[in-house]
């Protein structure tokens, strides 16, 4: 189903900035592929530590030129640098860390999110295959203390991504607590989706018009501050 309208909202970089504000000082966090990867551009200077599921704590900035080391990449397969205090470990330790509840926040991309905090991200049925790339997404959902989704509010064709029921295969059920899009910040609670913030220039009605489930308007609804 398509809401037909398209609004101008935040850029991917600015969605990432807004997410970064929600990562508390002292947190360990993990970022999925896509918009989430951009969050580290905004956490420099914060007292937070990114984990990369490939087996690294405290990944540094992307490596440039001479810095590139083929033995040092992040989970998105980008050459990165190390920092004082960076460390490495094997994959069973890495996923033990993830599954075992040691990561404070995971930020993932998504194809669909529903009102109960279920989300779909690992498989696009349009591709016509039962199999797909699961990667570390389901482990992060199972283990991270908080799960945030960062994504565009609708598809390129203007279809709902914030939906009543998932039509794509679920990655995990009931795990998403916050949703950050180009148009809004939405908290997912047992009562439903609470609209907390809207992009500059938009109204709650605008966001509702491109959101399939009924949003609860937060009592202190405000414009996204950047």
């Amino acid at each position: 189903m398509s809401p037909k309208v398209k609004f101008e909202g935040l850029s991917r970089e600015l969605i990432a900035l807004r997410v970064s504000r929600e990562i508390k000082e002292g947190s360990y966090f993990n970022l999925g592929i896509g918009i989430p990867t951009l969050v580290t551009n905004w956490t420099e200077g914060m007292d937070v530590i990114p984990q990369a599921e490939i087996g690294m704590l405290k990944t540094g900035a992307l490596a440039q030129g001479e810095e590139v080391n083929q033995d040092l990449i992040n989970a998105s397969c980008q050459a990165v640098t190390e920092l004082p205090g960076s460390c490495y470990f094997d994959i069973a330790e890495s996923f033990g860390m993830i599954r075992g509840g040691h990561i404070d926040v995971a930020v993932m991309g998504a194809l669909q999110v529903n009102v109960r905090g279920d989300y779909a991200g690992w498989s696009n049925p349009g591709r016509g295959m039962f199999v797909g790339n699961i990667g570390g997404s389901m482990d992060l959902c199972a283990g991270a203390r908080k799960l945030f989704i960062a994504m565009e509010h609708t598809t390129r064709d203007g279809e709902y991504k914030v939906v009543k029921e998932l039509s794509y295969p679920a990655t995990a059920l009931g795990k998403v607590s916050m949703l950050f899009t180009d148009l809004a910040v939405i908290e997912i609670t047992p009562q439903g989706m609470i609209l907390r913030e809207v992009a500059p220039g938009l109204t709650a009605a605008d966001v509702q018009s491109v959101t399939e489930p009924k949003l609860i308007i937060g009592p202190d609804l405000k414009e996204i501050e950047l």
Partner: protein
Amino acid sequence: MDKVIPSIDDAIADIKDGAVIAVPGFFACGVPRDLLQAIIRKGVKNLTLTCGCGPLLGAATELKTLVLNGQLKKVVDSYGLFRSASKGMADPFEQAVRNGTIEFEVYPMGTMAEKYRAGGAGIPAFYTPTGVGSVVEESNVTNIEANRTPKETRMIDGQKYVLEYALKPDYAFIHAFTGDREGNLRYAKTARNFNHVMATAARVTIAEVENLVESGQLDGDDVHTPGIYVHRIVAVARPQFAITID
């Protein structure tokens, strides 16, 4: 206990058609490229490659050759398809998966890691929260419908878990930065990834090392994989490859 074998072809000489081989690497990083090329030269067929996170996307040339040579029966991985659907359509591996000539079985990455760890550590099966609520809890996720068998789930302390089983490949191909003659290995940075757990899980573990050193040159506290897990070691040149994948 000197485990060094001078020739990489000799090191894999006993691998036969139908073997199950663990292939580490996280996309392009930490992949045993020389051993993959040796198995291509050897031409054994009907192979099952059990991976962890897309080493065959990282070693795309080797994957393509293995597929076109008809050497692969099955691949197990958490991430093995091109992200881009259009690139995937043009990829011989994805084509073989689509038409069912190669089986592709998918698990969450942490479950893959734990399956090897369990296999190496004598744990036949374990419960995990990962995959609950998805198709992963229903059966193994494979393109071959007839091979999908239901999984068990169980409530423990009010939470649902999936029962997963150990994975014990016949061989593991390992890439390490340093190895001594007795098989003690040390990896470089994120190239460690699946190498250690796979080394523990296989019946026969064959390691290619960029730097072969004498026993005693690695400090005992610096060893990442104890030599007991490693059966054969071969010195190789530091590989040259592009980091990016599609």
